[in-house]
């Protein structure tokens, strides 16, 4: 188990892998957001985009080590995002319920958005997909971090930069 931890906190020493992942990660993330934002026009959506976003952070962990990646995306922020996504999804559903429709009946959103029923449905789907994407990204990262740290309680000594 300690061997796994050592491996994860160590950076990759391959200059090719490090440089290329450094250059690729921003484009991966913008592609993921594109997949989420165009989910109602083209293949894709919240889950797929969220997985790509999570993969970009996992690539960062693999190449730059756990310490550096957690400085960008701490476990606390990750947990907050994980529940924020669920909150967005359920919030939109409950909002429709309050406005007098069924759960996730987007047509009711027209009462507050005033853009026409079709447009309200489209916006509602987009909002739900953003929620799904955020949650899926956070869940992917947290699964990976749990495997990487061997499921031990979070390595605060590494995260807080005392050792790094």
């Amino acid at each position, binding site marked *: 188990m300690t061997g796994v931890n050592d491996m994860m906190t160590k950076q990759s020493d*391959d*200059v090719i892998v490090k440089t290329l992942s450094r*250059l690729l*990660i*921003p484009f991966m993330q*913008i592609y993921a957001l*594109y997949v989420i934002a165009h989910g109602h026009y083209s293949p894709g959506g919240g889950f797929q985009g969220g997985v790509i976003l999570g993969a970009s952070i996992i690539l960062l962990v693999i190449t730059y080590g756990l310490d550096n990646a957690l400085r960008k995306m701490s476990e606390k922020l990750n947990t907050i995002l994980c529940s924020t996504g669920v909150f967005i999804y359920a919030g939109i559903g409950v909002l429709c319920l309050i406005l007098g429709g069924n759960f996730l009946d987007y047509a009711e959103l027209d009462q507050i958005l005033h853009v026409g029923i079709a447009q309200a449905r489209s916006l509602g789907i987009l909002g739900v997909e953003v929620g799904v994407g955020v949650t899926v990204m956070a869940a992917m990262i947290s699964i990976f971090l749990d495997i990487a740290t061997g499921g031990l309680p979070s390595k605060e000594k590494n995260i807080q930069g005392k050792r790094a």
Partner: protein
Amino acid sequence: MEVTILVQATDESFEILEKARERSKDVLDIAARLTSEAQSVQRKRVEAIFKGARQTKTEITRFTATFIILFGCWLLLSGHYDLFHISIGILCCGLVSHATHDLLFANPRAGDMRVIVKRFITYIPWLLYQIVLSNMHVARLALGPKNLIDPKIIEFKTKLESDISLVTLANSITLTPGTITLDIRDGVYYVHAVSKKTAEDLLTGEMEDRIAHIFMEADHVYVQDTLDMAPVFVALK
């Protein structure tokens, strides 16, 4: 009697004068020290302001550059050019470039980015030509009657220094059929070459020279650099 009193008075007055002088010296010393301290504190503060300003300036430049590149990428991907999609794009690009502006431009060298991009674009056709040439060579190896295949691992020390030029050379070698970069360790390339000719082509170092030229490696004085500078000198004349 009067004389002794006079002498005593003179002595006392001298003592008082002495003490006063010492005290004034102390006061002056303290004043001087205070002034110098105040000056150094002020200088430090001014330096900090300048340094902070420079740091924020490079960060803003990085952020803007990342944002422009990502937004171009977004427009290429999106295909919907209405207000709604473009505003989502601006939002997403802002988020991503805030998160990753220190990744895309980890060690930028100011000013010469345009030249690098220009030279890199002119490098691509040459690379494609090399790929075609070695494609034909490898096809001849595979289909030809003689058995010329002689695989081996060659090592050579490179003069390239920056990460990006090392990676460009490694990927150019891998893209050319017949050669594959296995590893770069401490500036030494380990390359697998399939035949004698591909290895010799690589060891002439032409590709390395061109990449050193693109990324303007410091120890590399290249004829092309002087030629590039020639119009500037003419204009100065």
